[in-house]
């Protein structure tokens, strides 16, 4: 019974992340895109998928990965997110430099660009804080609250960014993944009571 539940959760997670990627891989738009542009697009889609795992891992909700191992995975995936965002932005820059410069300088005509750029800076900020927090002497509670605020910016920014884009992602699978990303982040923030003096027990 327990095994069945574990298998079900893993299957559901794999479906939530892989179906949107597979649907995007079937997009007719890919026929008219160069390899660098395609790579940049998929780096973004994969980053959105990884964003679903992040809160679940840190809360120890992923079966087989209890809190201490989940935290390790969370850190590795956090680093992967930084790399994915760099590939996303770098690939789009190579594809069309003026469009990327417009986005980064908040002068783009596309409404989704500023959301993506803000989420990008929040991802970089949280990664930098994670690396430097001991050296900076951040108290655990300060770190937790800073991370949570940045996570809210990252999740909200990424979801709006993704939903407003007309690209290779298929609409229904994209909306479903975005809803799950939002729901997972909200649930974990409430469950862990990040704003409390001491973090709630995880596990």
């Amino acid at each position, binding site marked *: 019974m327990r095994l069945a539940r574990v298998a079900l959760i893993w299957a559901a997670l794999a479906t939530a992340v892989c179906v949107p990627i597979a649907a995007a891989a079937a997009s007719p*738009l890919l026929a*008219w895109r*160069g390899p660098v542009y395609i790579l940049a697009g998929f780096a973004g889609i994969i980053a959105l998928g990884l964003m679903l795992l992040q809160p679940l891992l840190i809360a120890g909700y992923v079966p087989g990965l209890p809190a201490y191992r989940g935290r390790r995975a969370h850190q590795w995936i956090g680093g992967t997110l930084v790399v994915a965002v760099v590939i996303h932005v770098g690939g*789009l820059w190579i*594809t*069309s430099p*003026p*469009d990327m410069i*417009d986005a980064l300088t908040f*002068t*783009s*005509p*596309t409404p*989704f*660009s500023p959301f993506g750029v803000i989420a990008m800076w929040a991802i970089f900020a949280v990664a930098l804080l994670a690396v430097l927090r001991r050296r900076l002497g951040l108290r655990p509670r300060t770190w937790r609250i800073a991370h949570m605020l940045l996570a809210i910016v990252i999740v909200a920014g990424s979801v709006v960014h993704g939903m*407003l*884009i*007309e*690209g290779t992602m298929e609409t229904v699978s994209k909306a479903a993944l975005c809803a799950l990303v939002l729901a997972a982040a909200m649930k974990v923030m409430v469950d862990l009571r990040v704003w409390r003096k001491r973090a709630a027990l995880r596990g």
Partner: protein
Amino acid sequence: MTIVVLNRRNLLAAGGAVLATGVSGLLLPARAEGLAATASMSGGANNYRKGAPVVDRIGKGGFWMSGTVRRAGDGAPLAGQRVQIWAHTTEGQEHEPQSHGATLTDKNGAFRLEMPQIIPIFGQPHGHLAYDSGEFKTVFLRPVMRSAKETSLEAHFVLQPA
């Protein structure tokens, strides 16, 4: 087009078409008097290539870009004006030379150029147009298609002296 949507772009487009016939220019002289010049759109000049040749058609065609060119103030149609057009299409990316072409306005200030199907790029299906001949101030437009399935797009210029 099966659905008539009343928004600013459509009203401007319809208004432009009516004015371009030269009929209403006689009916509405007072209102046309204050016709403001079109401002360049943000991102409009992206992947612009100077001096794209005047062509009968860009690539194999199948998609129509059309619009009008008028003079600011009195709204008079401007004939023989060169309009440059480019986009990410089924036949090439925005920056590639084969994605660029130019056409001239007719005596009613209208232009129409066949080009390959525009497809979404950078998150929006859109085209680029430029008036850059020097007689009037340069204007770059970046109209967005309401749906990637559409097979035509319009853009309208109101130019002021350089």
